[in-house]
């Protein structure tokens, strides 16, 4: 058990060192002693190194099939392939909490490494916040969910002694999927990355340095966390779509909601910080938003692990809910108190010049995003309160979420298009007319085409919401095209470049703005994909070999029912021929598995992916007399665009993160040459 000893040692020393780092940083800040501050900063890196050692030790135990360790025996077995063994680190409570701590200290070290010189006054307090959170998680790793705990058995003489089973129980079959191997680490980077902006926010509040400096510093960290959280959510959706076998990718599950809430408030923050950077406004709003985002991230962890709400993530439940509740309440109280205490220092430096301006657009978008996040929060925690008050666990159901979130989402989609058309400070009526005419006209003219096109493609006319969504998708796309075109045309007029060069230079020199538009286009594609759900077709059939069933425009015929077995699972498989209009177009092999180690069944769905629609087949098993197969078939229109939209969002975020090229004029303008400020 050498690795377990090393792991335990690393965790306990890291726990002590985290507190030491807080003490050295705060004392160093109080005395303005660079030596103490350096000790505090080195301690952060020391904690990171130790947590990395503990994580590697856990992986070592899993890869060595060390079933004398409770966690390894519970989440791995000898027959599992290597990539699932690597993923077993985050398949259960203890390991995933360790990964959480590793990502947390990784961010802390990155923040210290990159910002220590630029923000030496904020850094000690930011370290205190980051290491305070780390200490809480290390407390859990050490004392509440230790991945190095050994298994104990009873000997023949009745004594307790270390014991190791011959094999482990293996990874939960639902988690044996490629998306699940990468989904948790990516999601964790998203959740935990918000610790950096939050820590700098608290440091700025504490030191009263509440200008735009901390905001511009944390922007990149926020953007990275935000996109990782977004990718994590989409990968979770992809996993649910391919592994849970109910035909969809989003069900307003409490844990899905838990990841969506900080993403929504993080999106709001990314927009409102622009107003603070440019105008010195919305300071209270921004510190509140990033605090809320961080607290919602912790709440998400609490909901996933506490078991207070039932969820598809029930595999990670345990008894640490009380610890999380305490940490969450304490953080909320401290945060709120600090913001209220510093309110006099959070006065706005500017004022809203006009209600028709980019700033007001940002404000409305923020209000809608916050309303969306809070309504999701209400729906998610409703069962907890209903049980507390009435003694009955009542959940609000998908209808509640759809009724509230669909209109809010569409209003946000409208603002995604309208906001960029508004100028900062003030937009005149004539400019409004000029900028809105083309996108609005194209969207309105296209409405009848959508109506006819939907009937032709999906055999169904769109409902009101679907129609509004399709029209808005086109409207936003046209605004984005118009923005790129007008910006490019302005560059051509000024610099005489060709169209392509002008567009590339426009994007490189205004990468935040135009990268943001690319992200907006990704959002449009995701909305398009979601709208496809309005046209979903579903059929259940019990058919034997050679028999046929129909779903949407497809005829399905079973050609063969086979069975096979390996060391990990038993499997039954169908060979299905899919025809459309009398022509065979696909052959699909849906599968039903039964995993030996965990004694759990699992469905491996078969999907024919096309840009227009997915054909999605689930083999639910044989009927009662074991002669026919039970097949659940879905036609999911436009679902591919959800994943494509995600990829476009990643591209847009990457553009935003590129270092901006500055024009010579801008460089000159920042030099103290007054002539440059003249109108040209």
């Amino acid at each position, binding site marked *: 058990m050498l690795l377990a000893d090393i792991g335990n040692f690393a965790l306990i020393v890291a726990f002590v060192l985290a507190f030491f780092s807080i003490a050295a940083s705060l004392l160093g800040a109080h005395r303005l002693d660079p030596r103490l501050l350096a000790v505090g900063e080195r301690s952060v890196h020391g904690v990171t190194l130790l947590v990395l050692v503990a994580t590697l030790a856990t992986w070592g135990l899993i890869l060595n099939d060390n079933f004398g360790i409770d966690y390894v025996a519970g989440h791995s077995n000898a027959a599992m392939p290597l990539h699932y063994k690597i993923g077993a680190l985050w398949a259960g409570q203890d390991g995933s909490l360790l990964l959480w701590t590793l990502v947390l200290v990784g961010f802390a070290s990155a923040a210290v490494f990159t910002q220590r010189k630029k923000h030496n006054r904020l850094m000690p307090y930011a370290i205190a916040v980051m290491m305070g959170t780390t200490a809480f998680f290390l407390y859990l790793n050490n004392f509440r969910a230790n991945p190095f705990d050994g298994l104990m058995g009873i000997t023949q003489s009745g004594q307790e002694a270390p014991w190791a089973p011959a094999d482990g129980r293996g990874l939960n079959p639902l988690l044996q999927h490629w998306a699940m191997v990468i989904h948790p680490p990516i999601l964790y980077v998203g959740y935990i990355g918000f610790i950096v902006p939050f820590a700098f926010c608290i440091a700025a509040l504490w030191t009263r340095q509440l200008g735009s400096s901390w905001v511009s510093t944390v922007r990149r960290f926020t953007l990275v966390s935000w996109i990782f959280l977004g990718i994590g959510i989409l990968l979770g959706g992809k996993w649910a779509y391919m592994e849970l076998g109910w035909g969809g990718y989003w069900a307003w599950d409490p844990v899905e909601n838990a990841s969506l809430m900080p993403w929504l408030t993080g999106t709001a923050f990314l927009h409102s910080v622009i107003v603070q950077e440019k105008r010195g406004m919305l300071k209270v709003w921004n510190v509140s938003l990033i605090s809320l985002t961080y607290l919602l991230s912790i709440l998400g962890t609490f909901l996933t692990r506490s078991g207070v709400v039932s969820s598809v993530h029930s595999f990670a439940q345990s008894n640490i809910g009380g610890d999380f509740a305490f940490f969450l309440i304490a953080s909320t109280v401290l945060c709120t108190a600090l913001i209220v205490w510093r309110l006099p220092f959070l006065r706005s430096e500017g004022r809203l010049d006009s209600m028709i301006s980019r700033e007001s657009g940002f404000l409305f978008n923020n209000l809608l995003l916050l309303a969306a996040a809070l309504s999701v929060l209400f729906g998610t925690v409703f069962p907890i309160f209903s049980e507390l008050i009435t003694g009955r666990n009542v959940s609000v159901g998908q209808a509640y979420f759809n009724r509230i979130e669909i209109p809010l989402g569409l209003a946000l989609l409208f603002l995604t298009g309208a906001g960029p058309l508004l100028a900062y400070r003030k*937009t005149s009526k004539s400019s409004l007319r000029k900028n809105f005419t083309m996108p609005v006209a194209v969207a309105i003219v296209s409405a009848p085409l959508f109506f006819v096109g939907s009937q032709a493609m999906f055999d169904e006319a769109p409902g009101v919401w679907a129609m509004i969504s399709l029209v808005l998708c086109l409207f936003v796309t046209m605004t984005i095209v118009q923005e790129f075109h007008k910006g490019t045309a302005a560059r051509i007029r000024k610099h005489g470049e060709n169209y392509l060069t002008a567009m590339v230079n426009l994007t490189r020199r205004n990468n935040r703005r135009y990268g943001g538009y690319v992200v907006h286009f990704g959002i449009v594609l995701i909305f398009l994909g979601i709208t496809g759900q309005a046209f979903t077709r579903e059929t259940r059939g019990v058919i034997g070999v050679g028999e046929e069933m129909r779903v949407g425009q497809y005829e399905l015929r079973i050609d063969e029912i086979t069975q096979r077995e390996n060391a990990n699972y038993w499997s039954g498989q169908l060979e299905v021929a899919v025809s459309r209009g009398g022509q065979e177009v696909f052959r699909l092999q849906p599968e039903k598995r039964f995993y030996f180690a965990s004694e759990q069944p699992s469905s491996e769905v078969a999907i024919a992916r096309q840009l227009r629609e997915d054909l999605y087949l689930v083999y639910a098993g044989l009927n009662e007399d074991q002669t026919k197969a039970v097949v659940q078939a879905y036609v999911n229109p436009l679902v591919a665009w959800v994943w494509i939209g995600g990829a476009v969002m990643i591209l847009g975020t990457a553009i935003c993160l590129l270092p901006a090229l500055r024009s010579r004029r801008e460089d000159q303008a920042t030099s103290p040459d007054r002539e440059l400020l003249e109108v040209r």
Partner: protein
Amino acid sequence: MEFVLLGSALLIALVVLWPALRSDNDEQWIFSEEDTPAGRLSTRREVLVGNIADLDFEFAMGKLAEPDYLSLRDNLKRQTLKVMEQLEVIESRDHTNAPPESEPATAPATAFCSACGASLPPRAAFCPSCGSAVGS
């Protein structure tokens, strides 16, 4: 095994504490540029110049009527010039106060915070005790 772990703990402690243990380390606290009044004004100037660039760009894109554009730009220009003037005052003051390079540096007179009375380190922009801006 215990000895190896104990040795590792001591090594970690030594590496972490090294900046405080070094006898030749007499590093002084230096405020980063953004913590000085000049640094803050410089940041403000960059923001304002960026705002002017945005305004020019949005006018070129046809999002602003010309009268609005001219009045907003004039307003921003005045704010920028004011900040630049303040910067020039600070820079010329710093320049006047700076000792000639050949002269040996003398120990600065101890300054005290006007709000709480705590002693201030050289070039402090804020009081380390109460956080008040120096000179406010």
